[in-house]
């Protein structure tokens, strides 16, 4: 069967930001497959120049509306390291709880509202409200739980207000923490319900070997800071982020591409899972087992499952963190500091993967240079090559244009790309 067709998906829906999929098939053979990011750049690296360090996290959190806490914390971490500020332990775990909230919120949004419609064959989650009300409800309750965690720890669900250099400006009240603990207990069953639902879905069978990159500190499942590792055995210090990214530009995309040891690499839930399986909470491991997910898994569609597994980890870990905070007097939350010159990288595990902010300050505490490398940027190349491989595999299996189109969309979406963020 010799077919000619072009797939041109302009502004792929149900992802954050603007990206296009372009595939052309000639004579039944794949001629070209591209992942093109067309988002408008905002030039954050320029904007930070001359800005006071303390204002920077408020600026950079606006890189992304979904993972604003990660951006804020990446900036804070880089600036704290640059200016040699050590935040108090209490602040450190409040921040971790904030990250958990954001990741839970983001994963729930992606799983239930952006990805689930693909599997159910609906254009959005709105029809699912009718067909699977209990699943949508579970998704909403988990997303709300994530948001509540973020609100309690940072003052707001999107664009945190109380994450500042030196620590946090305000601690959550014990009463609020106790309420959230109760909320977690009440909503755990929702997570199990969701797991049951996702088990009924068929994950496409597709494998392309790649290199997974994430943070790793050997002690806990990573979220804020640590070494940089890959499944190919690379391990480097946080400050060596450039060696882990090797950014380059391609002419069809406003977002850059990156690589480590191979032609492309991947970050995100699956990468974290692949590198840190041992450090997962037992409850999360049990969930992974239920899906037959084991490290190292090379099926990008399994990223959805890894996200669900992480939700189990986040909820269980959040519960333990809250217990620690309830025993704390929550007084020592912010370190005093003096501005100074310095430079450092802050790396955090954003919901979509490892995120680097690099900042250089002068002695008055103003930023003189900034650099941000976003998880989706690190996935662009992988998405691009995956598209190629997936299209080829599908054509070989004799799939129709419609089927190829749908699979390609699903593939991109399973990376949960955050495009406006990647262009920034």
């Amino acid at each position, binding site marked *: 069967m010799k077919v000619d067709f072009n797939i041109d998906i302009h*502004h792929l*829906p*149900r*992802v*954050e*930001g603007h990206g296009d999929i372009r595939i052309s098939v000639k004579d039944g053979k794949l001629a070209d497959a591209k992942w093109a990011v067309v988002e*408008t*750049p*905002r*030039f954050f*690296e*320029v*904007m930070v*120049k001359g*800005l*006071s360090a303390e*204002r920077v996290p*408020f*600026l950079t959190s*606006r*890189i*992304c*509306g*979904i993972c*604003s806490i990660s951006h804020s914390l990446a900036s804070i971490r880089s600036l704290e390291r640059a200016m040699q500020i050590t935040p108090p332990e209490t602040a450190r775990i409040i921040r971790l709880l904030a990250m958990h909230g954001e990741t839970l919120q983001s994963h729930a*949004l992606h799983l239930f*509202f*952006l990805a689930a*419609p693909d599997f159910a064959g609906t*254009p*959005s*989650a*709105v029809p699912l*409200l009718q067909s699977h009300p209990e699943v949508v409800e579970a998704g*909403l*309750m988990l*997303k*709300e739980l994530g*948001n509540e965690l973020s609100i309690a720890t*940072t*003052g*707001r*669900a*999107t*664009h*945190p*207000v*109380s994450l*500042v250099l030196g620590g946090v*400006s*305000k601690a959550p009240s014990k009463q609020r923490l106790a309420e959230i603990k109760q909320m977690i207990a009440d909503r755990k069953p929702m997570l199990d319900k969701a797991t049951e639902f996702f088990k009924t879905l068929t994950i496409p069978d597709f494998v392309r070997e790649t290199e997974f990159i994430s943070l790793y500190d050997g002690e806990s499942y990573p979220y804020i800071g640590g070494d940089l590792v890959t499944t190919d055995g690379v391990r480097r210090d946080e400050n060596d982020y450039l060696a882990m990214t090797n950014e380059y*530009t391609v*002419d069809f995309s*406003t977002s850059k591409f990156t690589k480590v040891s191979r032609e492309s690499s991947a970050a995100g839930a699956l990468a974290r899972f692949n590198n840190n399986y041992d450090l997962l909470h037992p409850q999360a491991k049990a969930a992974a087992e239920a899906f037959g997910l084991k490290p190292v898994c090379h099926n990008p569609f399994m990223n959805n499952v890894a996200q669900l597994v992480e939700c189990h980890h986040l909820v269980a870990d959040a519960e333990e963190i809250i217990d620690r905070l309830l025993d704390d007097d929550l007084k020592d939350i912010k370190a005093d500091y003096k501005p100074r010159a310095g430079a450092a990288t802050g790396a955090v595990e954003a919901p979509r993967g490892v995120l680097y902010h690099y900042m250089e300050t002068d002695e008055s505490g103003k930023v003189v240079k900034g650099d941000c490398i976003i998880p989706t940027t690190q996935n662009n190349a992988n998405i691009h090559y995956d598209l190629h491989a997936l299209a080829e595999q599908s054509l070989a299996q004799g799939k129709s244009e419609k089927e190829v189109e749908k699979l390609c969309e699903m593939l991109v979406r399973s990376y949960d790309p955050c495009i*406006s*963020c990647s262009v920034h």
Partner: protein
Amino acid sequence: MNHLGFDIEKLKIGSFDFTCCEGCQLQLANKESTLPEFLALLDIRNFREISSERLDDYDIALVEGSITRQDEVERLKAIRAQAKVLVAYGTCACFGGMNAQKNKFPKEECIRTVYGDKQIDTMQESHKISDFVTVDYSIPGCPVNKEEVERIVVSIATRSPIALPKYPVCVECKQRLNTCLFDLGEVCLGPISRAGCDAVCPSGKTVCLGCRGPADGINYDSFVQLVKDKELSTDEMNEKLAFYNGFTEYLNHEG
């Protein structure tokens, strides 16, 4: 609710984003407890971020983001032509937002810093959407306050006029019994910024940066005097005033 003799119809709505972080659109999916009720008010015709359905018969367009590229102007004008009501949604759309912090650098420098020699299309300035089209309502906020959004959507659905608070953030801040950040030695823009956010930043003990723009009838001169009287830094004040681009007319008038 039809005690006045008319039935409330679903609003045919489209949500569109330009140069921004999409955080404001994300708020539409937040406040989960009332989300099903909120969605029941809407007939979503076009909302790429959550739905692959794209229909062009919306009446109300929520426009998020600032304008930084010529092709965006055309897209925006097309949306204006279709929409009966166009809402500037979020600080970027209302004022240009923090994206406008790049305005102070020449665009060539911006491109060179980030992309090296690669050709990139961008405008010198990040514009508010009212620079190009007529705006019917503005909902400022970075991000918008979902409660306010809900209220405004309900107002449109129930055919009730829409109004933002005219008073400054301090009113809400005092109602939350916060310690004034000036008493802690910081410059807060609360006295001159429009309320409606429930003083979320000062309540988290960080200064108000004026994301909702100036309140009605502000006393800018007295505010500047206050910063000087308290021996706080006017540079810091200016950095804050410029943060969301909402106070340009005052900043320019000053110097």
